[in-house]
């Protein structure tokens, strides 16, 4: 019995199903954004690290009247031009729900929290809900689109 349980857990660990792989991938992206926010390295290096998470034709729609970004190059240009902020920012994911649309695509809804400590006594905190489209390319799950959902309209 113990062998069966160990085998099952081992299988789940080394060969996870797509849902946890997608969530893990998005968590890695959030970690990357968190590190990048505090990383004093040049913007181009930061942009190159993050490019690996997106498809070439990714669409980012931040909502709130802000124009959508089309394409990985445009996204990386924006990311590379951002200056590291004073203090630190932590990006975290929560409440991710993954729905596999096809074998190679999935829809994810999740909440992203942003905690920024700019050296003031009060850390600023923000939470946003997003719909994310993931696609599998060469066995890697990539972000194909991100759309902000207006919880309060």
């Amino acid at each position, binding site marked *: 019995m113990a062998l069966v349980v160990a085998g099952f857990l081992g299988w789940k660990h080394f060969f996870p199903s797509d849902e946890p792989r997608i969530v893990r991938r998005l968590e890695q992206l959030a970690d990357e954004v968190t590190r990048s926010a505090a990383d004093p390295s040049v913007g181009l290096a930061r942009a190159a690290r993050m490019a690996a998470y997106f498809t070439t034709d990714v669409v980012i729609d931040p909502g709130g009247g802000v124009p959508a970004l089309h394409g990985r190059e445009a996204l990386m240009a924006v990311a590379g031009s951002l200056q590291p902020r004073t203090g630190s920012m932590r990006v975290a994911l*929560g*409440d*991710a*729900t993954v729905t596999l649309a096809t074998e190679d695509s999935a829809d994810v*809804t*999740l*909440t992203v*929290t942003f*905690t920024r400590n700019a050296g003031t006594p*009060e*850390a*600023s*905190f*923000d*939470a*946003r*809900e*997003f719909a994310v489209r993931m696609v599998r390319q060469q066995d890697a799950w990539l972000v194909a689109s991100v759309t902000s*959902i*207006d*919880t*309060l*309209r």
Partner: protein
Amino acid sequence: MARVGRLLVGSNPRRTFVRVVILIAASAITFGWILLPIRAEGISMLPTYESGTLHFVNRLSYIAASPARGDVIAIRLAGDRVYYVKRVVALPGERVQIVDGTIHVNDVPLSEPYVKNRRPWNVDEVALTYQEYFVVGDNRGMNAADHDFGRAQRSRIVGRVVF
């Protein structure tokens, strides 16, 4: 040692065990399903709720009743871990606008004693549908652009923040 053991489990260990199980089950039901513990983060509800303080959301508040004006409510985002905590200022079917920091509901200025600081926010009139509530945080001393407020769907309201 035996006295310590007796103090811990009582004279009737079976009864003590049953009590512990009931206590654990009651706590799990209460804090998992009825009174949801939440920790406030951020400054949008100042001065009513300080960042970092612990509060509870009563998930049964709106089973038999609807949210009322002045209620502080929890609003669901993508799931059950993160909520917006806001105050209801306008109800379904009402018209609401903000003029120089004062909320007007159906053209009548709203008295809000819980608001201590006020910046001159201006928001065009919004007509709420019968499934929408207009919610705002108590901290009006911050920039409107940095403050999440607006129409919340009834289906997203989880419950009332009770304390």
